[in-house]
């Protein structure tokens, strides 16, 4: 009998409580969504497993000892992984559409309006100003930027905000179209845009160099993200370091995604996640996406008042990052109004500009609040 008692006490069952079981259910739901529904599986699956691990009674997140704590501490708290993800994104991104039509940069800026609307919404719901900034940046639809900002301003919000950001990114095709249709007329959705000019290799090489100089001079706090982003893009466009470029796009990106996902999931033990604030974050996250979409479209309408060659306001909605999903949605909604209207490449301009815009918005938050 004593032997059995000894065995029982050495096991971890006594350390479980109902909250852990709820978190298991949430983790398994995420596993289901990733595997069965294909919702951002590359990130949702590692995040889900991180949630499961941290809600098992173990020392895996014990500061200074636990394995996942080390991933989290050196990867995210030290803000190393998000810039490495940006290196890979830079190496994967073709800035041709932005260079061919630089006006679309403004649409990438316009969509950041949603970030600030949500920022005030979060303040109104009782979040402190640092937490409100991190919740607001969800509207930028950029997971690594959300994690980067959370690591600097509100680490306790990192897991929740990362899951909200990635969940809503997967839901872009569901969230955006109703807002887009509400804010545009059929005639506006039918506006056809001129084909983009061909962009030379030298222009593409100049772009990352100019971008990193301009952004770092104006917003030094965005240097880590934008520096890596532009370096990745320069590797791609230079054409002389294909091995490095491909490594950044594939192997490195995959490796850091594993560490990012599992350690972000590990920031969600039941006692942190099961609070009423989480519901607030998810509501505000959807508000952020809707407002960012609306602000992008609104700015496109405003620009059309001054432009000779009108732009299709739908491409303004692609100013939220979520590359290339938001651009595809803009194209799809446009082609529903006019089957021969090809908006995809036009929408890629504001889409990649949105990545820059969100990183700059995060840098601006840091410069004021840190």
């Amino acid at each position: 009998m004593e032997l059995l008692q000894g065995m029982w006490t050495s096991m971890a069952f006594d350390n479980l409580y109902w909250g852990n079981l709820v978190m298991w259910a949430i983790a398994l739901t995420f596993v289901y969504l990733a595997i069965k529904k294909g919702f951002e599986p590359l990130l949702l699956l590692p995040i889900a497993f991180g949630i499961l691990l941290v809600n098992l009674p173990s020392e895996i997140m014990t500061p200074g000892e636990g394995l996942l704590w080390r991933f989290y501490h050196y990867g995210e708290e030290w803000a190393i992984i998000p810039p490495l993800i940006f290196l890979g994104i830079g190496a994967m991104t073709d800035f041709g559409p932005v260079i061919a039509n630089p006006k679309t940069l403004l649409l990438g800026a316009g969509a950041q309006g949603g970030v600030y609307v949500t920022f005030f919404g979060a303040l109104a719901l009782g979040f402190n100003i640092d937490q409100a900034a991190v919740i607001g940046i969800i509207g930028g639809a950029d997971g690594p930027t959300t994690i980067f900002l959370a690591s600097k301003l509100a680490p306790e919000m990192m897991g929740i905000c990362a899951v909200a950001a990635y969940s809503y990114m997967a839901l872009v095709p569901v969230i955006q179209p109703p807002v887009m249709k509400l804010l545009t007329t059929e005639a506006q959705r039918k506006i056809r845009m001129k084909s983009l000019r061909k962009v030379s290799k030298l222009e593409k090489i100049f772009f990352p160099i100019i971008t990193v100089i301009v952004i770092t001079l104006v917003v030094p706090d965005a240097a880590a993200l934008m520096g890596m982003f532009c370096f990745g893009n320069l590797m791609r466009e230079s054409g002389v370091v294909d091995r490095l470029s491909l490594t950044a796009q594939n192997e490195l990106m995959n490796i850091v995604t594993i560490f990012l996902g599992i350690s972000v999931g590990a920031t969600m033990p039941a006692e942190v996640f099961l609070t009423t604030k989480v519901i607030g974050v998810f509501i505000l996250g959807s508000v952020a996406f809707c407002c960012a979409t609306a602000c992008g479209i609104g700015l496109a309408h405003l620009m059309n008042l001054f432009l000779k060659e009108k732009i299709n306001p739908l491409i303004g909605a692609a100013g939220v990052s979520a590359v290339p999903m938001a651009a595809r949605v803009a194209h799809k909604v446009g082609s529903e109004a006019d089957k021969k209207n090809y908006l995809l490449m036009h929408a890629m301009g504001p889409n990649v500009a949105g990545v820059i815009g969100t990183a700059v918005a995060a840098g601006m938050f840091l410069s004021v609040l840190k």
Partner: protein
Amino acid sequence: MSLALTTFISGISGVFLVMTFLLIMIKLSSKLAIALEKKQEKQES
């Protein structure tokens, strides 16, 4: 002015300032790149 308002005004103006500055610089760099390429083409021919 409250910190929230300062954050908002500096943030939104910062984003637009960066993008406008970037827009101008990209237009200028494109002109420079095209001019350099034309010059090179002439030299080669």
